[in-house]
């Protein structure tokens, strides 16, 4: 897919109401400043659109200048959002030490030549202003110094303690404006934190911000925790726990801390995943050594059996429209990926290559299925279309497993273990070129990416007189 960075059509995000963070359109909140008109200098046409081959990865990251915001935690906000943009692989924030112009205010446009001189393809700056209600108003503008026009302006209103989330949300707006794809920075990762030794390992359910900050343990280590997954509501998760003599699936509400056993089954339950609307959980039950896929309606607690062959059928994952599931089965001898309808009908294999395919995860965009593939003494993370075509590997190493999709369907997080070493969380983009340990650097496995914590209704620069697309 070829995307023009400077879209000629205005893209307005969905208008879902925000909860924790109140968003207003820039034209609403930033109007009325005494110097407003100065910020609306005549945009000069200069230079053509810059294009990024998103599917091919980044050949040269986009040079962005992120000036320290003025006001409370302003410098930290700029640092956090710069880190987000850098980790995405699409952006290379310019070292602020090289900035010529300093002291930018929202009332004024940047001095464009001073930014083009240092190679900035975009300039981001903003301010944090206290409000009478105790919250802060964080406004920002993003300019194209070559074309000398405004790419986006926006503001968020939130409590001072929420400055990190504000930084992530600004990064999401910038990412969306520059790539045409929704962002993924205002999200969290639920994972299994590991400690102790190989033979005396402690595993705890934990949650952390996407960039690795604010890790919190949610269980005490008395059970072995496996495979936590988010619902479409980022407050709700499902996970598996192994005790001394039991195996359970728990539903857990992150806000209330309420934990509920999904049920007592005739057999051992494993591999839970929510349906896209959060109304059902698909999982497997092992009975008499045979593992099959079931789905439970959370309202009625009615259990339906979806597979019944003698092979291992597990790791079900719904398509984003809920109409189908991908799962893995060794009914043909080796583990392969299969797709079936939500009622269990129409089961058919989709993976075509040799080796073992396990742990599939359907992309939230619906276009791809990620999986773990082993063979030749290595394990890797790959993707294929839902019909099995276009398989490509994004990563390979001694051991890695369990890909989980970023909310925008362009990145995967997974766990990787070095030979005889620790297990950590890694992230790869769909090109396979952007690959690095995730923001969270501690020991952990089984990462699951949350949906965006709430949607931002950003007016991407439309309506401003100096908007690039005006």
């Amino acid at each position, binding site marked *: 897919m070829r995307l023009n960075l400077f879209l000629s059509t205005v893209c307005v995000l969905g208008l879902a109401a925000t909860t924790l963070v109140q968003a207003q359109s820039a034209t609403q909140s930033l109007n009325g400043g005494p110097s407003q008109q100065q910020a609306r200098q005549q945009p000069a046409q200069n230079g053509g659109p810059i294009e990024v081959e998103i599917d091919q990865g980044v050949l040269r990251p986009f040079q962005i200048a992120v000036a320290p915001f003025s006001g409370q935690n302003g410098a930290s906000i700029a640092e956090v959002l710069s880190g987000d943009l850098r980790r995405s692989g699409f952006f290379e924030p310019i070292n602020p030490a090289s900035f010529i112009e300093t002291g930018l205010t929202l009332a004024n446009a940047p001095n464009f030549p001073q930014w083009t001189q240092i190679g900035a393809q975009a300039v981001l700056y903003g301010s944090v202003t206290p409000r009478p209600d105790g919250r802060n108003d964080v406004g920002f503008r993003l300019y194209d110094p070559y074309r000398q026009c405004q790419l986006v302006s926006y503001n968020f209103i939130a409590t001072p303690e929420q400055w990190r989330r504000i930084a992530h949300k600004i990064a999401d707006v910038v990412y969306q404006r520059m790539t045409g794809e929704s962002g993924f920075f205002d999200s969290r990762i639920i994972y299994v934190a590991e400690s102790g*030794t*190989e*033979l*005396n390992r*402690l*595993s705890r359910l934990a949650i952390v911000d996407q960039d690795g900050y604010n890790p919190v343990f949610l269980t*005490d*280590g*008395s059970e*072995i925790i*496996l*495979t936590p997954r988010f619902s479409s509501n980022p407050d709700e998760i499902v996970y598996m726990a*192994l005790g*001394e*003599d*039991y*195996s359970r699936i728990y539903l857990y509400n992150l806000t209330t801390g309420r934990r509920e056993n999904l049920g007592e089954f005739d057999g*051992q339950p*494993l*591999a839970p995943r929510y349906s896209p609307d959060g109304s059902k959980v698909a999982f*497997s039950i*092992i009975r*008499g*050594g045979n*593992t099959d896929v079931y789905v439970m309606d959370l309202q009625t607690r009615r259990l339906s059996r979806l597979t019944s062959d003698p092979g*291992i059928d*597990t*790791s079900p994952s719904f398509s984003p429209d809920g109409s189908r599931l991908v799962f*893995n089965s060794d009914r043909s001898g080796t*583990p392969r990926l299969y797709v079936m309808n939500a009622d269990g009908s129409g089961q058919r294999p989709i993976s075509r290559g040799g080796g*073992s395919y*396990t*742990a599939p995860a359907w992309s939230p965009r619906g276009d791809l299925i990620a999986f*773990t593939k*082993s063979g030749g003494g290595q*394990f890797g993370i790959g993707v294929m279309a839902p019909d099995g075509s276009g398989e490509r590997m994004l990563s390979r190493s*001694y*051991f890695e*497993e*369990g890909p989980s999709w970023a909310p925008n369907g362009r990145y995967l997080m997974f766990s990787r*273990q070095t*030979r*005889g070493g620790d297990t950590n969380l890694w992230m790869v983009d769909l090109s396979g070129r952007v690959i690095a340990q995730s923001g969270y650097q501690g020991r952990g*496995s*089984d990462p699951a990416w949350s949906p965006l914590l709430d949607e931002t209704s950003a007016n991407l620069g439309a309506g401003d007189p100096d908007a690039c697309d005006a």
Partner: protein
Amino acid sequence: MMTASRTAKVVLIGLSVVAMAACAPRRPVEGATGETGTGTNVPAYPGPGTGGIEGGGIGAGAPGSQQDFVVNVGDRIYFDLDSYSVSPEAYPRLDAQAQWLQRYPQVTVRIEGNADERGTREYNLALGARRAESIRNYLIERGVSAGRIDTISFGKERPIAQGASEEAWARNRNGHTAIVSGAN
């Protein structure tokens, strides 16, 4: 923090021979090191060179005790890579388990299926379950009533041998017969 039961479990595995899991002492685990020839109390199964677990000082247990079962019968059998069928090498031990269980008919057991680390988490749980079921079926064929045998799979979550070696993986592909109740 680790619970008492989990600690007990690990000590049981680490020392290979302790009296009762329920009253196992809280001691640091002496992990397997992968060294050869030091596992004096480790059953010489699946073969020499897989030891390294320290332990000792405990004689044969009283007849019908858990210790008796662990030391004199052997509570674990091993599986080939990606396999869940009981290998002929394991027949004598499972035969002995069946005989012991028939001698002490009040004992109930839980067969725990385990897999090595070279597999993905959920698939390994399913694989471990097949191993546990194979052992259960074997014991039933040898006359142990089905109602006395429960099963669970721990997948790759409960390794007994440390290290990324063929030897460690071979030991971690096992089925463990744990006594639940009824032992002397």
